[in-house]
């Protein structure tokens, strides 16, 4: 029935009914969001306000004011409407409002159903106690006195002082704190550190050898330049940005539908970083690429930023609410990503700690008021990867065809049933009866009816999969002008005063915003991307610093406000920000500056642990380099790289790695229907792409990424955590991914070297960038020998043939289960090598190499 409602909704908007094309669906979305913003569930004001808001304000609010009456502020109620004052404080019985809701006189409100007795009683009591309204009034009429002077981050950047290098600031602080710097790290450690840092991958044995051999004075600088020039750089640092903007390939919520063309934004980010696109330009393109650079392909793709949040509109949603959710989301995410401030609080009330009044929140929001979702046609660019498009498109089309075929078969069944019922030949059935039977589906069994609905949903899903390969852009456009009102308590039903677009008043540097629709975002983008803005450069250099040291100069990189952490080195932050601007906003220049410092090149060993425990337990002052656990993506990519399985393919629609089979086949509910089972990509090189290129589904995460603290895709992730939980052990020690990778790794080293000892040495060079110590080598060889003995005795499990998956779900018609068979995989599936396909010796070696993936040395960077 959900699908029916979606259709009905589409029809009610006078759009194409029946099978909605993807453009049709887009049109539904557009229509849904174009409706005037108004409502969001009440945030818990007093009962009276809540009752009035929910029952009265849609007609008697500041916007409608039917009969001249506005019930959204105390003042307006006392003033009343055409019939006189609505409320006489202290005297409920004399108040017109009460007379109307008690329905005793000629005026009976609200029309239709009367208010519940309890609600009437509550309003009576409220008036009798003087009709207090302070909390609401405060939000409606912001009386914010900006105290921007108190918040360091709103102050302009400091003028340059005596100190002129990263180390000068760091060492000054160490001296001040009485701390001693650790000695420089050894070369092997430095190479591993820098390579993971800039590319998210381990250095190869050849790279290790070359760097250790290079005796030139600038060997380190050359190494950094080599890494910065690698296409792998953008894949690693692009991921940092994708964390901040919550990149995902799906909508989230009920259906969690695919966003078929979102991947072009992901590739845009990676490409921009690889080309060292100036950061100010990067901002301008993402916020207003369509307004500022019409006709520029990258700028158009970049506006996908504005739509990165979770978003959904279904028949269960109120259109105005959905629209407001987008506006709140984009306001908040813009401020968080570029300015490092949290602004969600200001939606309902003036920010309690930062100089961000509610009025500013809605002024900023007004710059997006006319922004509409749009899908643009745009040819693929030379830097976009279209390898395998034909193959993958054919596969998605085949799934779509199979689904349509199944639906057609059920339609035939209906015709046959109808023929039976009417006692007519199938060819002679009256057309209108056939039409009605096909529509109502009442001649199908409950099970078949449920299956039909499931196929119907799958058709929508596979249509989106087909769309991945179309030259479309997931973007925005400027639509008709729309007014923005301050929403009392964030409540759409209580719009207050209208506001015009504007910037944050706490920032001294201001700029003009045009009232015309077509340049509001451009003005906002220019204001943010200005060297005069106190936050923009600081926030970005802080993110870069955090990428290198694991923690920013400001530890809360998404919160530069009063409740965020204070900078540990405020002058350094400003020095970096100035250098950043002077370099032409070059992110790569910042990497060079930071990575060339002594601070970055120190050993990861504390020189005096006891002293540090007292003076700097968190290593805020960087007397030694902070070691870190690999991020989820680095860990998966490193396992693949070392085992020789990592694909060098870059870009294009997200691919699907193998995940735990139980999870892949886990039935998953989407709007009363089965989601299709998770389908891994048939080709190994597709499955084993870098993690940044894997499909990011909001409600189903790859457990390998999830358990190692992969980012939540609904909220901006300012910094990765690295907690240690037992499920990580299961993922890295037991999973098919880890076991298959170990087997591939074993085959790789068997090809590279002969003899067990040489093979183990080779494995250590690949995984740890060093040779094993004697003790380690002996441990490994002993273990391999024992394992081999075991494997000679015990046969591995046979390879399981792939069989069509049949699953069941309780459906809403009968409350009973029905079964559904998955569409068979249209493409030939390229299996990973299975234990049964290799000799016992290889299986034994794989057992040992699995331990290397699990070793602390592999998982941590020092």
């Amino acid at each position, binding site marked *: 029935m959900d699908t029916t*409602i979606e259709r009905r*909704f589409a029809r*009610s908007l006078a759009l194409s009914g029946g099978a909605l094309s993807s453009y049709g669906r887009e049109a539904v979305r557009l229509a849904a969001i174009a*409706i005037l913003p108004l409502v969001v*569930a009440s945030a*818990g004001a007093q009962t009276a306000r809540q009752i009035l808001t929910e029952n009265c304000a849609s007609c008697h609010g500041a916007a409608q004011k039917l009969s001249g009456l506005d019930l959204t502020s105390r003042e307006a109620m006392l003033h009343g409407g055409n019939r006189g004052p609505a409320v006489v404080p202290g005297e409920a019985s004399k108040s017109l409002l009460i007379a109307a809701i008690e329905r005793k006189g000629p005026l009976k409100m609200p029309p239709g159903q009367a208010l519940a007795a309890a609600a009437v009683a509550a309003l009576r009591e409220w008036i009798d106690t003087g009709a207090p309204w302070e909390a609401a009034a405060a939000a409606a009429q912001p009386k914010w006195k900006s105290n921007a002077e108190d918040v360091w981050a709103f102050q302009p950047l400091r003028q340059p002082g005596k100190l002129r290098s990263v180390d000068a600031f760091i060492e000054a602080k160490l001296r001040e704190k009485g701390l001693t710097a650790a000695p420089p790290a050894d070369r092997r450690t430095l190479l591993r550190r820098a390579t993971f840092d800039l590319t998210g991958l381990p250095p190869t044995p050849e790279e290790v050898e070359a760097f250790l051999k290079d005796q030139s004075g600038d060997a380190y600088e050359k190494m950094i330049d080599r890494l910065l020039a690698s296409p792998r750089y953008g894949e690693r640092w692009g991921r940092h940005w994708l964390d901040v903007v919550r990149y995902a390939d799906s909508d*989230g*919520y*009920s259906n969690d539908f695919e966003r078929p063309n979102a991947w072009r934004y992901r590739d845009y980010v990676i490409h921009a970083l690889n080309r060292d696109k100036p950061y100010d330009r990067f901002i301008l393109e993402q916020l207003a690429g369509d307004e500022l650079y019409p006709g520029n392909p990258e700028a158009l793709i970049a506006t996908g930023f504005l739509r990165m949040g*979770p978003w*959904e509109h279904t028949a*269960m*949603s*109120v259109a*105005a609410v959905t629209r407001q959710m987008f506006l709140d989301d984009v306001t908040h995410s813009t401020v968080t990503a570029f300015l490092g401030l949290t602004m969600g609080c200001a939606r309902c009330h003036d920010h309690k*700690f930062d100089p961000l009044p509610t009025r500013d929140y809605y002024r900023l929001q007004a710059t997006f008021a006319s922004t509409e979702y749009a899908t643009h046609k745009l040819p693929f660019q030379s830097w976009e990867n279209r390898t395998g498009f034909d193959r993958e498109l054919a596969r998605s089309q085949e799934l779509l065809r199979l689904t349509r075929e199944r639906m057609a078969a059920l339609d035939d069944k209906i015709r046959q049933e109808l023929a039976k019922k009417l006692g007519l030949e199938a060819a002679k059935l009256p057309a209108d009866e056939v039409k009605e039977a096909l529509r109502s589906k009442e001649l199908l069994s409950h099970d078949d009816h449920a299956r039909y609905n499931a196929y119907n949903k799958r058709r929508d899903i596979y249509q989106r999969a087909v769309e991945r390969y179309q030259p479309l852009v997931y973007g925005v456009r400027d639509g008709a002008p729309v007014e923005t009102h301050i929403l009392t308590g964030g409540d759409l039903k209580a719009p207050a005063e209208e506001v015009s677009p504007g910037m944050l008043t706490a920032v001294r540097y201001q700029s003009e915003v045009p009232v015309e629709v077509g340049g509001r975002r451009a003005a906002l983008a220019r204001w943010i991307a200005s060297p005069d803005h106190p936050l923009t450069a600081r926030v970005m250099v802080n993110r870069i610093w955090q990428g290198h040291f694991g923690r920013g100069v400001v530890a809360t990189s998404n*919160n530069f406000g009063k409740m*965020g952490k204070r900078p540990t080195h405020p002058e350094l932050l400003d020095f970096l920000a100035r250098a950043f601007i002077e370099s032409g906003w070059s992110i790569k220049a910042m990497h060079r500056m930071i990575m060339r410092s002594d601070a970055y090149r120190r050993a990861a060993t*504390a020189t005096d*642990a*006891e002293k*540090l*425990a007292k003076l700097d*337990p*968190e*290593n805020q002052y960087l007397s*030694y380099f902070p*070691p870190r656990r690999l991020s989820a993506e680095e860990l998966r990519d490193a396992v693949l790289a070392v085992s020789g399985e990592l694909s060098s393919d870059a870009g294009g629609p997200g691919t699907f790695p193998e995940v735990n089979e*139980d999870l892949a086949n*886990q*039935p998953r*509910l989407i709007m*009363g229907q089965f989601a299709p089972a998770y389908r891994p990509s048939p080709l190994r090189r597709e499955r084993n792409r870098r993690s940044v290129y894997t499909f990011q589904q909001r409600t189903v*995460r790859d*457990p390998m990424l999830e358990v190692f603290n992969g980012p*939540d895709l609904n909220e901006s992730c300012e*910094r990765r955590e*690295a*907690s*240690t*939980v*037992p*499920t990580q*052990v*299961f*993922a890295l*020690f*037991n999973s098919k991914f880890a076991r298959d990778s170990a087997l591939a790794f074993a085959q790789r080293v068997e090809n590279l070297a002969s003899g067990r000892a040489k093979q183990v040495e080779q494995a250590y060079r690949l995984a740890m960038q060093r040779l094993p110590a004697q003790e380690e080598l002996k*441990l490994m060889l002993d273990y391999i020998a024992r394992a081999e003995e075991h494997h000679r005795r015990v046969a591995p*499990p046979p390879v399981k043939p792939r069989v069509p998956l049949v*699953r069941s779900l*309780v459906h*809403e*018609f*009968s*409350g009973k289960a029905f079964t559904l068979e998955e569409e068979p995989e249209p493409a030939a599936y390229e299996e990973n090598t299975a*234990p049964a396909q290799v000799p016992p010796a290889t299986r034994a070696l794989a057992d040992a190499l699995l*331990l290397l993936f699990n070793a*602390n040395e592999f998982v941590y960077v*020092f």
Partner: protein
Amino acid sequence: MSSETGLHRRAFLYQTASGLGSVALSALLHRAEARAGVLSPKPPHHPAKAKACIFLLMEGGPSHIDTFDPKPKLAQLHMTEFTRKSKFASAMESGKRYFVQSPFGFRKAGQSGADVCEHFAHLAECADDICFYRGAVGENTNHPTALYLLNTGNAFGGDPAAGAWIAYGLGTENENLPAFVVLPESHYPQGGATNWSNGFLPAHYQGTVLRPSGSPILDMTPPPGVTPEAQRAGLDVLQKLNGMHQRQHPEFAELPARIESYELAFRMQAEMPGVIDIHRESESVKHLYGIGEPETDAVARRCLMARRLVQHGVRFVQVYAGGWDSHDYIEEAHRNRMRAVDKPVSGLIKDLKRMGLLDSTLVVWAGEFGRSPDNGVRRGSKVWGRDHNATAMPMWFAGGGVRAGHTAGATDEIGQKAVEAVHPMRDVHATILYLLGLDDAKLTYFHGGRFKQLTQIGGQVIRELVS
């Protein structure tokens, strides 16, 4: 540092241990404490009424009107038509509609005379152990957003689930098991794993899903062909390699913590299968839950597993029982769902009572919303069914600290909205925390520039529900 931000020691510990990579952590703290795990039991804020909670989540939105809140008035209005037009109505709620009476009979159950639908025959026997509540209201009529609100206090998702908060507040009494366990249907609910997320809390507090088939925890069971002995042998070598590595970095506390996590995982792998093995229960207990009967078997297994988990020290167990989204054909669909949960859920109450665990266990029964007294005209026909309704919903509580044998709150005469003892979801959350010995205002975590809490902006305990 705690004076600077007001963070209490525990939060500080988590934050350092989870990311700041402090070499000197072990010098600052006793190593034992750093290793003991963030899940060790913690004292409550006030004396707890219950030590553990079993949350029975009736996914899909069960109808209050057809379960525990009969509305005779609807018999008079039955099939009368009206039209709803509102800018604030969803497509589902708009257009031509008609009222629908309940197809079911009701009985007065127990000494308290609680209203219970005829298809909850077994549950009726437990009426005097239950506090029925009719005053709860949500904010959303979309399944995932309503589920997020019920589970996490935030309709947009992304915040920690109630179970995560409670695990954070109280730890677990058995460190070999997770503190917060989720027993889903064979399918995941709408909105997926966000429903049991740890949100911004450390990952230890995430709900651990026990899967109904295959390995109970993802990849917990070693792959086929790998014996526990072989695995132990590998683990021993790994720990020796890790030991050699650790000697080069003696001050870095994360390394021993990670070494210990392998031992914990190994213990969990050994202990978990026994804990959830319901075959260890007697036939009479299995019969009590309805195990082996086709209608009830699936929910019964999860309910019994929930009891076994609580018995073994798990703090918060969530049992999903779906299929309640009866837009059409409510007579058949709701009847089947009621029968599917009736015996398992009442069996759980009776079993907990029998074992003396009911006093220390809070049982909550709720869906993400209730259903409407009316239905939309779909396909031109009038079918007995109900749409979503966030302003009235069925909910009940049993066990530790609950005002048993009582019905609190009321809805209006057609069941459209709650009108007495009306409370938002955050108050329901505050009440659950209160019964478990936690103070909503004190159970906070500093994140994103402020101290966050389950109730978002603070909730109040619903006194009508508490004994």
